[in-house]
């Protein structure tokens, strides 16, 4: 089968997979929602230009798309388990090289091309279109839209190809992966001292010259080609054996109730592929970037304390922990046991509360490194806890046990943003005036409780789909 045929079949498969879950219209509208938010966000650029220079905003957007490429690519590491939990014994073309007369390289090349085109259409193009549409209103040259599209595409593909290479190496040998990561790290440090741009998409955005473009293309094409050449489905035998850890963990959590569910969540997190990577890439790295940006911000506006603002963002990002907790679980796994959906959700909430000790530690660390840390720690703590609870409540109400798929539905995503962003923006602005206004966040606790209660009732009525 030629690669173009495989490519188009995979494109169809990807579309059908998503549209089966969200409905064709709901999923087709997702890029429209991305474009709308990019448009609205771009309109606010002049408002924040004093505190967030355009160049810094552009760098943040490029880093965001780099991370997005990493996340799309890392799906290859753990995608099969995810798909099996969601759709039963999923049988995707990408996994079928042993049953089809097609080489693994062809399948992987088509898979890489499919991910590139599909996710550029889903995220990058709508984002760039939204930004371009806003340029006339913010006194920017509309031609910047094209430049933004190219730079964002380069950043996205850099993340995608790097993680594809790393996952290919991982499939061959963990030592090979560690060695390659070490070589990359040393090369990065060496390059940073040589005057060559470390992040060529950003250099290309600032100066659209051939040099950064060629460099970016090399950083995309070389790892992509290497991962296609080295790809293997003959994973080394990694059948690990584990002693029963469920009962000991549950024993320690007995007083919380739902102890075996919480223990299962803990084991899912600890044993799933990419467990530590998830924590680093989707949690600690974005938080570190945000904290650094906020510390830069206070140089432009002396006198403000960024800790409460950080606590707001920390609360929002913490809600993604709920996505981790539901990633390898679905209610169909319990539907034949004497368990209610509401019972599973309650257990997830307890797991979430325990897992929130991690962001709490991050907040304490941030307070320790903040100039006015001690004074604003209490309002920041209240803000973090309230925002985390509220954002979680909105997620549970809207998506039940399926945040990883439901948030791609345009309607659900729109409602999520509308339910969270006004309150959070208000909190951010109020806390910039005075950190003590962070205590206002406690007002979110009541709607959070109501949403959780309504969410439990709503998802109790949920029924397994058929046909």
């Amino acid at each position, binding site marked *: 089968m030629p690669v173009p045929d495989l490519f188009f079949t995979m494109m169809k498969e990807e579309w059908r997979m998503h549209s089966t879950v969200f409905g064709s219209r709901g999923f087709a509208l997702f890029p429209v929602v991305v474009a709308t938010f990019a448009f609205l966000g771009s309109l606010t650029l002049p408002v924040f230009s004093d505190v967030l220079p355009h160049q810094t905003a552009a760098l943040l957007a490029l880093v965001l798309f780099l991370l997005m490429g990493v996340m799309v690519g890392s799906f290859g590491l753990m995608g099969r*388990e995810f798909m*099996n*939990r969601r759709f*039963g*014994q999923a049988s995707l073309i990408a996994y079928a090289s042993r049953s089809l007369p097609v080489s693994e390289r062809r399948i992987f090349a088509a898979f890489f091309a499919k991910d590139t085109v599909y996710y550029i259409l889903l995220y990058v193009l709508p984002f760039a279109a939204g930004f371009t549409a806003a340029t006339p209103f913010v006194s920017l040259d509309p031609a910047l839209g094209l430049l933004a599209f190219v730079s964002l595409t380069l950043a996205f593909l850099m993340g995608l190809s790097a993680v594809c290479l790393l996952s290919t190496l991982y499939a061959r040998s963990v030592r090979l992966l560690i060695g390659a990561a070490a070589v990359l790290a040393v090369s990065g440090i060496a390059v940073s001292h040589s005057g060559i741009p470390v992040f060529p998409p950003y250099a290309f955005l600032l100066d659209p010259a051939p040099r950064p473009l060629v460099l970016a293309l090399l950083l995309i094409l070389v790892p992509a080609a290497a991962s296609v050449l080295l790809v293997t489905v003959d994973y080394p035998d990694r*059948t*690990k*054996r*584990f*002693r*029963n*850890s*469920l*009962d000991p963990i*549950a024993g320690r959590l007995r007083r919380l109730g739902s*102890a*075996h569910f919480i223990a*299962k969540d803990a*084991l*899912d997190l*600890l*044993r*799933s592929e990419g467990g530590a990577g998830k924590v680093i890439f989707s949690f600690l790295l974005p938080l570190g970037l945000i904290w650094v940006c906020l510390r830069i911000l206070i140089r432009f506006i002396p006198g403000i304390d960024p800790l409460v603002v950080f606590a707001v963002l920390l609360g929002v990002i913490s809600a993604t922990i709920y996505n981790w907790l539901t990633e*390898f*679980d679905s209610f*169909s*796994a319990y*539907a*034949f*046991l*004497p*368990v*209610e959906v509401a019972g599973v959700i309650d257990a997830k909430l307890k797991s979430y509360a325990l897992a929130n000790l991690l962001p709490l530690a991050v907040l304490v660390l941030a307070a320790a490194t903040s100039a006015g840390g001690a004074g604003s720690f209490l309002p920041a703590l209240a803000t973090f806890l309230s925002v985390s609870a509220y954002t979680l409540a909105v997620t549970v109400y809207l998506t039940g046990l399926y945040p990883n798929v439901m948030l791609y539905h345009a309607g659900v995503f729109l409602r999520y943003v509308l339910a969270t962003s006004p309150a959070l923006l208000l909190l951010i602005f109020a806390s910039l005036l005075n950190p003590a206004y962070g205590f206002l966040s406690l007002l979110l606790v009541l709607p959070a409780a109501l949403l959780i209660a309504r969410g439990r009732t709503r998802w109790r009525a949920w*029924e*397994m*789909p*058929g*046909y």
Partner: protein
Amino acid sequence: MRQMIEAVDLTKDYGSVTAVNRVSFSVAEGELFGLLGPNGSGKTTMIRMLTGQVRPTAGSARVMGLDVADDPIAVRRLVGIIPEQETPPSFLTAEEYLHFVARIRNLDAVEERCDHWFDLLEFGEKRNVLCKDLSRGTRQKLMFAQAFLHRPRLALIDEPLINLDPIVQRTVKDFLEDYVQDGGTVFLSTHILEIAAEICDRIGVIHNGRLLSCGRTEDLAGSGRSLERFFLDLVRGDAGA
């Protein structure tokens, strides 16, 4: 004799598709009842309705005297279920999964129960392996073990022998026959006619959501016809009607 399952005009619509259409039947205590049908005929939807996993659009069902729509959790507490497609959680070991199910069902003597099933189905050497690393056959053994872990009086099992090797298939068939002889009741859904012919006391044939025939196995397949011939004539006749 006590009726363990009583379905009256049971109907399930999924949008414009009627998966099960006004089906009525009953299963008495101590029976091994087989629901036969081609793929997509409504067998799995029937089991899901009888165990409260989906709500009927119309009609009613009582399982062990309980109205399934009123208290599905109570029904699932009493019965054992092997779902058709579900696999055990990826990141628990086989042993942990059985312990997990045992805790949900508030069972005692968990080790003893688990050991019994590891020995009977001969997969004790896999007890410490993650479910994701188990073969399909071993996963099916595990799903079988979880369904009978609490020694239910009624089991509703969907394609229970799929992926099992002939040796374990024999063990499972023997177990089911002993289980029924000891007073247990089985509602078995399958499209493998040989299994039904070999172990079922009574058989229902479902096609396009409608129950075409229901009766004792020897009566249906009687008059010199094999069960396969009877089934094919019935289903093809219905498809052509």
